[in-house]
């Protein structure tokens, strides 16, 4: 499997571990940046509507980005080769949507400061499933275990400190506290379990771009179904959505940033596994905090103690990310990954040599370039037109932003996008 440490075709000097780590960190930056546009949405809409608006933006972007990067013929060929994985992609989308809805109830009942650290345990759940079902960390030395588990735990602890330091009174009574805690833990369990389909797909050689194309159907379908249930029917849901149209551009923009972050998360899960990749991408809280504090001035009223907690929590989280980054899977662990891959090949009649080549970033379905039909341009232009149309109808939100910091954070996110994108392309051709 990922037994190589250097580029095999002279495209990039980075190892797959280094690429996976970079993707995990880029995922954190973009998932964090996705929170920024949604902050521009003034209050007054139900959380379901905000979630649905964002998921609709995600749906548009999730069709467009794979088409732009690899083309529909590639995606369809990949899906045709591994049709069974469509079941897992849909399942993953459904798990995401239910978890996301649970967070609405968790925030309502116990507030974000308590709920966030609870559902942030999803990385530990993912780590457990990675070990149990996909042989991750098996065959590793004790120091590798401690780097990964210690790093993941540090990221969760850092998240707790940040959430505690930045907590705001929610005005909700304690009467529903237990249900709120259950909802937050449930969201963590669902998101952590969602990484089973991710890893399943990638050790079977599926391309992340193909996976997210199917994933988004499960995600959007379940979000619409849950929105309709909790709004008393589809017609009520559409009425509410229409009211939210002036804010829809910001939600779509948040959804678009989220897709970029999610794609990097998928590549991280592919190249370094869910045990290492997911905790790294969970550093998104650090980026969300940076946007909130530096651009929107959310921490202006914070006391000295709370500021120390924010700095401490951030440092603990960074230390956790560094620890995981240094825990490259040794040959003995990669041999365990290979066994998991071979088990999938046997069960679903796939060619192990071909799958192994895809996992090394050396081959993808139909290695020869596929012809791009004209209507792929129409799909990309159509998505662009939707964004422009929503942008023309968007209302300027009455919220102060620090422009210099906004430019700095945007620039850093774009640097992550460009550098990681180029390295991924040169080393793996986005395979």
């Amino acid at each position: 499997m990922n037994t190589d440490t250097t580029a095999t075709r002279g495209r990039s000097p980075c190892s797959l571990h280094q690429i996976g780590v970079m993707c995990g960190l880029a995922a954190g930056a973009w998932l964090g940046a996705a929170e920024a546009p949604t902050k521009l949405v003034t209050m007054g809409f139900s959380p379901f509507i905000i979630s649905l608006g964002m998921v609709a933006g995600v749906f548009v972007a999730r069709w467009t980005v794979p088409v732009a990067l690899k083309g529909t013929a590639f995606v369809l060929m990949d899906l045709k080769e591994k049709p069974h994985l469509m079941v897992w992609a849909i399942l993953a989308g459904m798990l995401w949507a239910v978890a996301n809805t649970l967070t609405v109830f968790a925030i309502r009942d116990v507030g974000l400061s308590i709920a966030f650290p609870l559902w942030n345990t999803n990385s530990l759940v993912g780590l457990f499933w990675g070990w149990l079902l996909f042989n991750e960390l098996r065959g590793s030395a004790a120091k590798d275990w401690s780097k990964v588990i210690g790093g993941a735990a540090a990221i969760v602890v850092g998240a707790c400190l940040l959430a505690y330091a930045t907590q705001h009174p929610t005005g909700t009574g304690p009467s529903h506290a237990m249900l709120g805690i259950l909802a937050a833990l449930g969201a963590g369990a669902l998101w952590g379990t969602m990484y089973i389909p991710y890893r399943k797909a990638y050790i079977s050689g599926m391309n992340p771009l193909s996976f997210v194309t199917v994933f988004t159907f499960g995600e959007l379908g379940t979000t619409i179904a849950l929105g309709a249930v909790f709004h008393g029917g589809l017609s009520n849901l559409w009425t509410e959505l229409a009211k939210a149209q002036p804010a829809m551009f910001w939600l779509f923009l948040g959804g678009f940033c989220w897709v970029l972050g999610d794609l990097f998360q998928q590549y991280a899960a592919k190249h370094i596994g869910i045990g290492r990749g997911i905790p790294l991408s969970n550093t998104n809280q650090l980026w969300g905090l940076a946007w909130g504090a530096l651009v929107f001035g959310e921490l202006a009223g914070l006391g000295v103690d709370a500021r120390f907690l924010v700095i401490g929590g951030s440092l603990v989280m960074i230390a956790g990310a560094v620890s995981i980054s240094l825990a490259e899977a040794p040959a003995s662990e990669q041999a365990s990954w290979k066994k998991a891959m071979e088990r999938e090949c046997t069960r679903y009649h796939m060619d192990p040599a071909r799958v192994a080549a895809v996992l090394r970033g050396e081959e993808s379905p139909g290695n020869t370039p596929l012809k791009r039909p004209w209507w792929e341009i129409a799909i990309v232009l159509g998505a662009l037109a939707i964004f422009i149309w929503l942008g023309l109808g968007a209302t300027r939100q009455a919220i102060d932003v620090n422009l210099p910091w906004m430019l700095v954070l945007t620039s850093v996110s774009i640097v992550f996008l460009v550098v990681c994108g180029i390295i991924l392309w040169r080393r793996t051709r986005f395979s």
Partner: protein
Amino acid sequence: MKDSILKSILTDLHFWVPVVVLIAGITLLFLLG
């Protein structure tokens, strides 16, 4: 999808773990709602 693949899916632990967790999540959601 071929029957043999369908059978492989339905006897795969990797399928049932997410399904059970999903059902538990939906149940919890309706209890909360």
